[in-house]
């Protein structure tokens, strides 16, 4: 450990350090950014304005219900048949083939002809609403009156890559911006010290498609999601390098500020260059702000227990869920949490063991997140979305697993005025296909955007001569979910 002092004096007192930091921020950070921005605002030209801060907060098309979104992505495809969508007929027909009346079925692993697999769950109705939830999700069962269960979700992606890609970007093929990027493009961000769109994972596994899932596609990279780790440190390189203490780091930043100032004095009015440096300034500001955002030390013991931080199996996802709440509290627009990163929910065989373990990790933190948002008054302005890229087939695979099923699966939404305790849509008697009130991924996205104040057809990014829209000109918000009908 070394430390810096100006003239061989002892370590500066804390107040001096604060002053030094403020001065540095004023000179090299906020002040500089503020100056650049005001110069741009003053410049009475649209071209100059186009280079102004692309993340500046702006109103949507209509009043939003959701100021923020937390998307809980169960990667690999959880089985709706074992969690939210009980099918008595499946037990009756277990071991037999899918009845011919269901027609031709194509599945990823070709399990169309395999015997039907009964669920082994105990199902009960919960809450005042009496929503069905299986015994794998006892904590979620306790919040059913807050959630709207959508049993009729439909995707086009038959495999993980296409499914995850579509659930994130609207298209099964890569190259399009993710939903979070569209939301950031449409609305900007209210917290200039933190990224607008943050992505976290419960483990370091590689999510299918990787960063493309939170990429900005053909839009500028400034709208892409920032992946931060759920562990320590949550943001790569956020903290000072080992061996550099804070006063020294501040002194170095002041030195850098001085060099930049010398340069700025010789090259005034470089607004474009200034605008491009917004991210560098954000990084410096984040070094001050982010440690507070990601430091769980001030969470009470009760809260930590609520999220399951005291238990090994729930601690990892619990930490990301608390972080999500802390980020939303600070105005982060879009937070996406991957659970089971690396297609862990993909239970082609051994579904019992797989889902029992994953539900055990996920159930308590997720329910805690909804409860915690509620009691802090944040749930009314935060939309929580739960689901994977698809569900699973009623047909078995390898005896005790289930294949991919994008033709009918369950997701749920809570908060942001979405009515709780309701079920939307239905699958057929075996849970294979959505048959009532089908909600395609485009409809889900249109619903989420609508709740954020964005009309999916009205949000346009011109690219290669085409007006590109987030839901590829498809989809519409579900009237019950956005509160048009009760």
């Amino acid at each position: 450990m070394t430390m810096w002092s100006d003239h061989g004096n002892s370590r500066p007192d804390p107040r001096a350090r604060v002053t030094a930091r403020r001065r540095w921020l004023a000179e090299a950070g906020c002040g500089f950014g503020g100056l650049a921005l005001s110069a741009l605002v003053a410049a009475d030209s649209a071209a100059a304005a186009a280079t102004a801060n692309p993340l500046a907060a702006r109103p949507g098309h209509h009043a939003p219900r959701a100021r923020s979104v937390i998307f809980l992505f169960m990667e690999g495809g959880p089985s709706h048949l074992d969690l939210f969508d009980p099918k008595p007929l499946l037990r009756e027909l277990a071991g037999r083939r899918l009845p011919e009346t269901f027609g031709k079925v194509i599945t990823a692993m070709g399990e169309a002809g395999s015997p039907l697999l009964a669920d082994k769950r105990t199902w009960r109705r919960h809450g005042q609403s009496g929503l069905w939830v299986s015994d794998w999700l006892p904590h979620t069962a306790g919040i059913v009156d807050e959630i709207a269960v959508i049993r009729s979700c439909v995707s086009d992606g038959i495999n993980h890559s296409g499914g995850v890609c579509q659930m994130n970007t609207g298209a099964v093929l890569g190259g399009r911006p993710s939903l979070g990027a569209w939301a950031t493009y449409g609305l900007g961000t209210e917290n200039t010290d933190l990224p607008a769109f943050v992505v976290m994972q419960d483990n370091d596994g590689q999510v299918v498609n990787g960063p493309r899932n939170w990429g900005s596609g053909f839009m500028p990279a400034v709208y892409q999601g920032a992946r931060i780790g759920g562990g320590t440190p949550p943001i790569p390189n956020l903290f000072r390098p080992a061996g550099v203490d804070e006063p020294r780091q501040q002194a170095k930043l002041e030195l850098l500020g001085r060099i930049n100032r010398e340069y700025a004095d010789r090259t005034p009015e470089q607004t474009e260059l200034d605008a491009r440096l917004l991210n560098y300034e954000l990084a410096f500001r984040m070094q001050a702000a982010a440690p507070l955002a990601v430091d769980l030390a001030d969470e009470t013991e009760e809260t930590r227990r609520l999220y399951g931080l005291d238990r090994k199996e729930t601690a990892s996802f619990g930490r990301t869920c608390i972080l999500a709440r802390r980020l939303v509290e600070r105005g982060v627009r879009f937070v996406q949490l991957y659970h089971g990163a690396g297609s862990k929910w993909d239970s082609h065989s051994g579904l019992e063991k797989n889902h029992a373990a994953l539900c055990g990790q996920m159930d308590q933190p997720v329910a805690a997140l909804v409860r915690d948002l509620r009691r802090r008054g944040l749930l009314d302005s935060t939309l929580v979305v739960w689901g994977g890229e698809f569900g699973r087939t009623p047909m078995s695979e390898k005896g005790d697993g289930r294949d991919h099923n994008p033709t009918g699966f369950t997701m749920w939404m809570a908060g942001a005025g979405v009515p709780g305790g309701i079920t939307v849509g239905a699958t057929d008697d075996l849970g294979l296909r959505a048959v009532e009130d089908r909600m395609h991924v485009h409809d889900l996205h249109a619903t989420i955007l609508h709740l954020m104040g964005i009309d999916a057809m009205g949000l346009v990014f011109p690219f290669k001569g085409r007006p590109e829209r987030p839901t590829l000109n498809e989809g519409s918000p579900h009237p019950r979910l956005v509160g048009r009908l009760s």
Partner: protein
Amino acid sequence: MTAPAGRRRGGPSHPTAGILRASAAALAAAVTAIAAAAEPPVPSFTRDVIPVLTKAGCNSGGCHAKANIGQNGFRLSLLGFEPAEDHEHIATEARGRRISPAAPDESLLLRKASAAVPHGGGLRLAGDSPGYAVLRRWIAAGGPPPAAGEAVIESISVSPARLTVGEGAATRLTTTARYSDGGSRDVTALALYEAVDRGRLEVDEEGIVRARDVPGAAAVMVRYQGKVAVASFTIPRAGAVAAAPADEEFPAEDFIDRFVFARLREVGIPASPECDDATFHRRVSLDITGAIPTVEAAAAFLESPAADRRARLVDSLLADPGYADFFANKWTALLKNRRDDASDTVSNFAFHSWIRDSLLANKPYDRLVRELLAATGTVVENPPVAWYKRVRDPRQQVEDVAQLFLGTRIQCAQCHHHPFERWSQADYHSLAAYFSQVGRTPTTTRGEDLIFHKRGVAGVTDPRTGATLRPAALGRTEPPIAPDDDPRLRLADWMAAPDNPFFARALVNRYWKHFFGRGLVEPEDDLRDTNPATHPELLDALAGHFRRSGFDLKALVRTIVSSKAYRLSAVPVPGNAADTQNFSHFQPRRLPAEVLLDAIDRATGTTTAFANLPAGTTAVALPDNSYTRSSAFLKVFGRPDGQSVCECERSQSSSLGQSLHLIAAGDVKAKLAAADGRAARLARSTAGEPAQVRELFLAAFAREPTPGEAVAARAWLSGELRGADGSPLPREKARQEQFEDLLWALVNSKEFLFNH
């Protein structure tokens, strides 16, 4: 930015009521004129009905022309390009319920369009609108189909085609359609108008153009029935006459400056002065070799008394292997030299070497492209074959070739006539036909095919008509190709021909953008009638010069960097700060990922080790994308992955991760602290502080420190570092850390991160 753009529903918005009334009257007059001129009272489906539907937005991609499904069961072809299909869908489908000749106003088509019944698209045609009247008369006549032998539209023209308009001034466009029977008519009211640069111009649905307050060149694209025309505008800076740059004389060979400065005069934007020697040295080194100058080179250049030192510098940079490395890096990414499997290594190294060696030897560009396009054999004996390994699908081949070498994005035409383009599906498939005889057979090496010309008459089947299309290159008729002749050679012949309108222009525009940060046409690979160049004469002159030079790439680079325009300072002067279009001052650019990594290595006196490559290999000399995966630095700074033929795959934006990486990541820290690095060496040096500080600034910025910087640096060096226990650090250790800190600040500074 246009987010969030309002949904375009309901009527057009008008700047003033006065104009609204005038336009409505003009529209009515135009339609009346059409009715009068088109004497037979029954409107033609193709000539009259479809334009009304197009203008009202019914057959746009977001509504009834949505691919394959239409909207709510009613489907039209995109922008009415398929009249026969549209007629069937309007008049026959759904048991003909969409039109009611006996009671035209009861037709579903009109009731929906006029919102008399609920319509998802709202009101498109008011009951008293001229468009409604046209549809009504057509329905009343029984809804006749497109007439056989009817005169077809051949072209449209817009007047005025070129005009200078003052800021805030408005002008009216007139659009005329010409038909195959020699007839013409005014279609101003029915044509579609779109400003190419909405920051500079706005245009309403009646063709009234208003200049905004951003001086420069701008254009309006006019579309009617699949035909396009462009009106170009020059918008001078308001009140700029006095401030306009003086008329400067340039020698005849300096055509770049003649055109650039003529345009600046025209738009009344002043040019910044020329940059100083040190800035030029750093700038041109970064742009030609992708490297910052060494301390020695920087010092030597600053001390050189030679009057032609800048010209000599350019020559030495072009002779430097770094030139070939840097441009090979650019081309291999565009040519998708991608490692998806360890077995790709040999082919990737061979392909990269072939490009690099070709550039180093200054192989003429037309020959380079010819060798690539017509490659046969195996990758070991003929490395450009590797391109056919990466780009296997003939459709992808034609799309890549069109975009990369012809600056034409033709992919839309695979499925439909693109509304902004003149290329049809037949053009697309005829171009693809050049690749129809590419044969491939597996070799004993895994993943490597032998590429050969498959004997036979080249042709592809038109998926719409089933007819066989013979090779024909964009707008050219190709004489028959014998079965033994490789059609790809004909394509290469055509590209290099003196009258080829694409090949040389696409390349010079791409290179212009490399040096100026913005193409004469933007994006650089989207040259089309409806996307005009900001400096069309300059683009033509540059392309002609390149062609006459025998497609000499080094000569092109020399011509560009020898211009005064390239030497202008990045510091704006009053009146040009907002200009990003007219090259009035240099546009600073963040160093690309590889260049930045090399620059940090050079500044810190270290190297980066890359797997299976000799020590000292720079990041710009990496052969393929695989190194991006193993380098957090290259990844976070956006090195492209060779997935796309578009330079836009390279991310030049700045992200948080980048900033945090530079501020605190372990690899950067290790370079600063390297035992044999610059900081350590300077700490041991006895040269004295002024010399030591000078070396740091020469290393980072290729210039001397200013007095203020020298003071700040020496103040830093005179401080004292203490350990955690409060006692001073050992002298050597403290000294090295002080130099590390100084170097850290320099490489994190704006001046270092940007080419300016």
